[in-house]
């Protein structure tokens, strides 16, 4: 009996699935080479149980952009010079915009318009990690919310989920717009979302984040929230601090001493 078109399609479909099975099985077992060391940390790396940052607004000098410039230089963040394609990992925004519910209109103008650094808050309970369909953004044991630029599909669900506007999308190829290339850190391609990573690559080398180091006024204090004697804890215990949109339960780890 001659096969019908339907039979042919059925057999073709089954063959296609059959041909695809070995590669899929192989892919699932890939990236397993011998010699992977158990997680051991070089002696000089900085470690923590929960990384956090305090912004001491009193020390922040208006007009200064050292933290922004340092971060964007170290991480090859492009400058598109237009708001639409803009990518930034850290930026300066007016305190009144950071804290719209706390900073009411009758606060002194100096406070309302004080530029403060905003960056990824590396939340304890990050909504961006919850929504990522590929786990390209994930949370490390030390609290840092990481981006895996190799896995990101650019769906921008994380950008919708972030309550703080911390994330930027590469809507275009960033390479031509990077001022001075830092060879020690990769760039990103168009099509992925990027954000501050608390300089985890510098922490691994025993260095503090670029913004913290660059700030001449020492307005940015970085450290382990769980370490009792740390500068960070000391600063936090020294007075009142607030976090952005803390009522949302995200547990942001950037604290502002206003």
């Amino acid at each position, binding site marked *: 009996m001659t096969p019908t078109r339907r039979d042919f399609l059925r057999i073709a479909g089954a063959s296609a699935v059959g041909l695809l099975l070995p590669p899929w099985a192989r892919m699932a077992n890939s990236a397993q080479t011998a010699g992977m060391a158990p997680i051991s940390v070089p002696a000089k790396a900085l470690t923590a149980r929960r990384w956090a940052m305090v912004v001491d607004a009193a020390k922040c000098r208006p007009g200064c952009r050292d933290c922004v410039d340092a971060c964007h230089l170290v991480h090859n963040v492009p400058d598109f010079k237009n*708001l639409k394609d803009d990518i930034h990992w850290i930026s300066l925004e007016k305190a009144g915009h950071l804290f719209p519910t706390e900073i009411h209109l009758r606060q002194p103008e100096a406070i309302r318009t004080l530029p403060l650094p905003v960056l990824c808050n590396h939340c304890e309970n990050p909504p961006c990690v919850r929504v990522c369909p590929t786990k390209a953004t994930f949370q490390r044991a030390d609290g840092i919310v990481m981006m895996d630029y190799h896995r990101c*599909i650019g*769906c921008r669900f994380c*950008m919708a989920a*972030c309550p703080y506007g911390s994330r930027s999308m590469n809507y275009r190829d960033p390479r031509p717009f990077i001022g001075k290339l830092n060879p020690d850190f990769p760039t990103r391609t168009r*099509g992925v979302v990027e954000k501050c990573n608390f300089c985890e690559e510098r922490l691994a080398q025993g260095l503090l984040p670029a913004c913290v180091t660059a700030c001449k006024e020492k307005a940015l204090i970085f450290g382990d929230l769980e370490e009792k004697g740390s500068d960070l804890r000391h600063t936090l215990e020294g007075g009142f601090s607030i976090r952005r949109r803390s009522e949302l*339960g995200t547990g942001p780890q950037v604290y502002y001493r206003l």
Partner: protein
Amino acid sequence: MLEKALTGSRGYWIWVAGLMALTALGLFFYLRQLDYGLGITGMSRDISWGLYIAQFTFLVGVAASAVMLVLPYYLHDFKAFGKITILGEFLAVAAVIMCITFVFVDLGRPDRVMNVMLHPSPSSILFWDMIVLSCYLLLNIVTGWTVLESDRMGVPPPRWVKPLIIVSIPWAISIHTVTAFIYAGLPGRGFWLTAIMAPRFLASAFASGPALLILFCLLLRRLTGFDAGEKAIQTLAKIVAYALATSIFFVLVEIFTTFYGQIPGHMDHFRYLFRGLEGHNMIANWMTVSALLACISLVLLIVPRWRKGEPVLAVACIGAFVSLWIEKGLGLIVTGFVPSPLEAITDYLPTGPEIAITVGVWALGLLLITFFYRIFVAVRSGD
């Protein structure tokens, strides 16, 4: 049965050729987008979802609306719908394919789309959306095709089709609930963070989908010999009326909670949506049109004398469809991002390439519907 789509009148082929041209144009611009990046669209750092996701959101509703034909017929033996459940299922197939295509063209790295399956993330609603949409697509392809083919052979459909069709009923509800959950679970976007998002989505789905179905039935009646029957069309129109009324009601209760509660952050979104904020009123202008269309269409559908007249019915259905396309499309998406988390108001204007790609995907969907309905008509008229 596929070969039936390859026979048709001159008008049929002119229509198909036109749709293919639009699809090709969309593909051309998509290749340009692949080359330049998503920056070729109007999206920005603040408004990171735009026209593509708006179309996806709206079309999931249209896809879900097949349930409005299937449920009365298969669960309640409403015989008038018996002839046209297949039309609903085929519409669902085309709509879901459009949804998947819109998500695909919206991705920054479409070459990595398999990562969603290679690295499953059950905490992500997008992961579940992909699963339920794919299953819904399969369900409708299989059931629609099998029932139509049984029709052609003149035999009752095989027994295994019925359970699949029954499953497609709660599944239709689920696809749109899951899509609503994409928005309704984001703590940072107050405009979307409302439990009524899923009910709103369902109500507007059951208004827009059947409205489109009515338009298709009217067209089929005019252009081919196929008549869905006055009872079927009028019942569908009543469903649209009830669903549209519910949808409007849901919007009104949202407005009540927002403006009686007087929380500034919440009010800002709705002010932007309907009136505009600080002079940014493009969305507000469109929403005014949407609101007017919704009310006029509702009235036209409620009054029996008007609903029963074909031209008025067509106008009402077009009005309902366009109104909800605006409200559930860009109205919903852009407003979620405005004001931004840092209180900024950014404008979003779709660019030419973006519109061309969007039109291309719609043309692709309409092409699929044309082919499906051509086959349907050929089978029903006994070719």
